């Protein structure tokens, strides 16, 4: 389904890969025809689709026009950086977002609640691109402005890891700022719903400490919507870190998507769609499975 949609969707994208490849270079009509034949673009659309589809079933995603390499290889190469960025970002966002959300709900209407909710709403509304550029300017010389590694770092593992970590700070802060805000707001509202539940009163009546009431009783019941959101977001974000990756030239899938669209590099776009759609499906599945673990009631149903 995804493959069918992707194939025809991207054929509607305006532009002709051969024209954009040869634009501004001395070419002849014969050479353009040769390129078209090489890419199979001279075949009827349905035949092109059939070739692609049968290839896909055998695990062949086709060749990228731009990079002249198998799409699977190109995507795989960019998957690592994206997972690193999105993984770090999500981890921090989950920890920070949930913690802030819980605290804000527990102490609702305090100054802390008002400030965090206000900041979260603001961050959620801020355009990622603008936030990234702003961070880059404000931090000055502290952090590098591009990519994942410096070219002149020593080759040993420790310096390389430190360098990657150093490069990771700004992009992940940018990613966290937006995502954590969302988690915080969801966590806060779902915990607020639980706050008046009678079982909390029971727990307090048993003489439990306020912290324990929160940790053992309220939060486990309220955390479900937030966890669902985390997994859904994670699936989406693998393909959706485009802006963050563009601002910081982070060599991940988002950047690849951006580059592929300028071709348009059909096979690469289709491959990316299959991979990102796959990520969403897998994450949905994981979220469903995890529900059962977190909340036994779901398992029964």
């Amino acid at each position: 389904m995804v493959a069918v949609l992707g194939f025809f969707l991207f054929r509607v994208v305006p532009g002709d890969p051969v024209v954009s490849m040869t634009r501004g270079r001395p070419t002849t009509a014969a050479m353009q025809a040769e390129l078209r034949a090489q890419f199979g673009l001279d075949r009827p659309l349905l035949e092109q689709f059939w070739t692609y589809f049968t290839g896909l079933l055998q695990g062949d995603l086709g060749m990228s026009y731009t990079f002249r390499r198998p799409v699977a290889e190109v995507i795989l190469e960019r998957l690592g950086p994206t997972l690193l960025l999105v993984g770090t970002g999500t981890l921090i966002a989950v920890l920070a977002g949930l913690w802030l959300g819980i605290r804000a709900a527990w102490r609702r209407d305090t100054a802390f609640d008002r400030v965090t909710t206000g900041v979260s709403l603001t961050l959620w509304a801020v355009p990622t691109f603008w936030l990234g550029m702003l961070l880059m300017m404000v931090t000055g010389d502290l952090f590098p402005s591009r990519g994942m590694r410096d070219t002149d770092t020593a080759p040993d593992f420790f310096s390389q890891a430190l360098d990657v970590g150093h490069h990771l700070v700004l992009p992940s802060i940018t990613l966290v700022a937006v995502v954590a805000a969302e988690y915080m707001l969801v966590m806060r509202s779902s915990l607020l719903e639980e706050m008046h539940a009678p079982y909390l009163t029971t727990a307090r009546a048993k003489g439990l400490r306020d912290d324990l009431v929160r940790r053992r009783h309220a939060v486990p019941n309220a955390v479900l919507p937030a966890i669902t959101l985390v997994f859904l977001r994670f699936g989406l974000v693998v393909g959706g870190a485009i802006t963050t990756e563009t601002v910081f030239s982070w060599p991940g899938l988002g950047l690849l998507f951006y580059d592929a669209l300028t071709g348009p590099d059909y096979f690469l776009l289709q491959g990316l769609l299959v991979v990102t759609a796959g990520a969403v499906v897998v994450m949905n599945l994981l979220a469903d499975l995890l529900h059962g673990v977190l909340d036994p009631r779901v398992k029964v149903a």
Partner: protein
Amino acid sequence: MRVKLCALVAAAAVLGAGTPVATAQQPTILKVAIVQQIDSMNPFLAVFQSSTEINRLMYDYLTAYAAQDQQVTEGLANRWETSADKLTWTFTVPEGKKWSDGQPITAHDVAFTYTLMMTDEVARTANGSFVANFESVTATDDRTVVIKTKAPQVTMLALDIPIVPRHVWEKIPSIKDHPNDQAPVVGSGPFVLTEHVAGQFIKLKANKDYWRGAPKYDELHFVYFQNSDAAVQALGKGEVDLVNRMAPAQFDSLEGKAGVTRNKAQGRRFTELLINPGAATRTGEPIGDGNPALKDVRVRRAIAQAIDMDALVARVNLGYAEPGGGLVPPVFTKWHWQPGEQEKRRFDPAAANAALDAAGVTRKADGTRLSLRLTGRAGRAYDEQASEYLKRSLGEVGIALDVRLVSDNQLNEATTAATYDLAFSGWSTNVDPDFILSLHTCSQRPGADGKGGTTDAYFCDETYDRLYAQQLSEFDEGKRVELVKQMQARFYDQVPAVVLAYDNALEAYRSDHFARFTTQPAQGGVIMAQHGVWGYYGAEPADARASAAGLSTTALVVGGVVLLGLVVVVFVVVSRRRATIGERE
């Protein structure tokens, strides 16, 4: 929870403080920001400007263009002669030039490269047009290459084809599947490729045995930026040493910045406004939906006359351009043409109004004569600003503009399908004007299926085509220059497009790291995107790289401050916990 957060913040701080410390004994590196994609390092496949520029550093061509004045000079070959019928060219590859693996460079390498392109379809992907007219290429001995062409070809000294080593490439089974980025990449240029990480960087090291002499520094790194604002910031911070393709506003932002020198150079690009002259295919079938009124050359001239190009350059290009004229930019002094006093169309709305009246395009009741679409690229500052400007000035002469700013691909699609009235376009030109002139011949229009065309202006003019054919077989340079100028004059007179401006190339470099770069041409030339290797090859490091140490010290100081702040935060949190302990228990 608190403990976890603190740990996280601490981890971030450690990373922040961990700026790699640059030390003096490290090799001298020139770091260049590239804001364009890299497609491939395989010289037969690479088509993007940035990739071909790097390929040029790895592989010499048969001939080169001098840094001083862009005249043809020694490349791999140092002598060449042509037969009386101009069909046979003999090039001599002198002794003593070596591949980076120590093997001698011979005529067989040249013959191998060209023959491969003639026989293997994939190998002519990038530069096939240069060999399209070749009959045969043979190496008669180690020093002599003989090229026979089907028809006389005036561009034989402008064959921009990287020559590859035969002993390496004849063992490669499939050109298509060879990324050519695994060291060692055997080359002949001033630099040798050592590492390419897609989407991140490309590293080259100096070729100490380069036949012109070794470069004056050790390594050349190209780092990839998706976003040119970030590249300009990185230059300001000293992360990179050289940036080009800056927008006028970015260029201005670096004015007076310590340690940064700007280079405003004559570029080889021009911006033009296409006026659909009644697009047709190669066989003369009309295509697209251009406004029929534009078929009248008087209307096109009137449009050109209603545009104040000086004002456009001053306000939209912020002065970083020269007002347009002929098709060849002024950086190519020899071929460049500017209209003389009589031919020149001066900005004159009144005359344009009168001309439109005379052409029978009269004003309707609402005061307008025509309504035209103006297609441009969304997100390109020039198109956005210039379209507003054109809307006003063409409004003066009764032409209403419907501005449509679309994506790059949509713009390409509109121009290749001729579904535009007016559109912004632009081209990069080469040392030899053949390419830019050929674009406007009748045969460059698309075929019956709408494909295979390279023009976007759909010009088809007998006089122009005749002159084009003449200059293509004119081997007397003085006479050819004359013909090329006549062609530009004809183009200017018939206005299928108005050349609005010759854009300046805006570059900047860290003059505290690198003292001097060789520009091409010597006067007002560019450092990057040259027709040659001179900019990178001729770079001279500054004596003291003092700033490197300074940078890391600041980083350490700031890192220390961050850590100190953390300690304070932890202290506050802990003391608060203590204070509320009674409440919680």
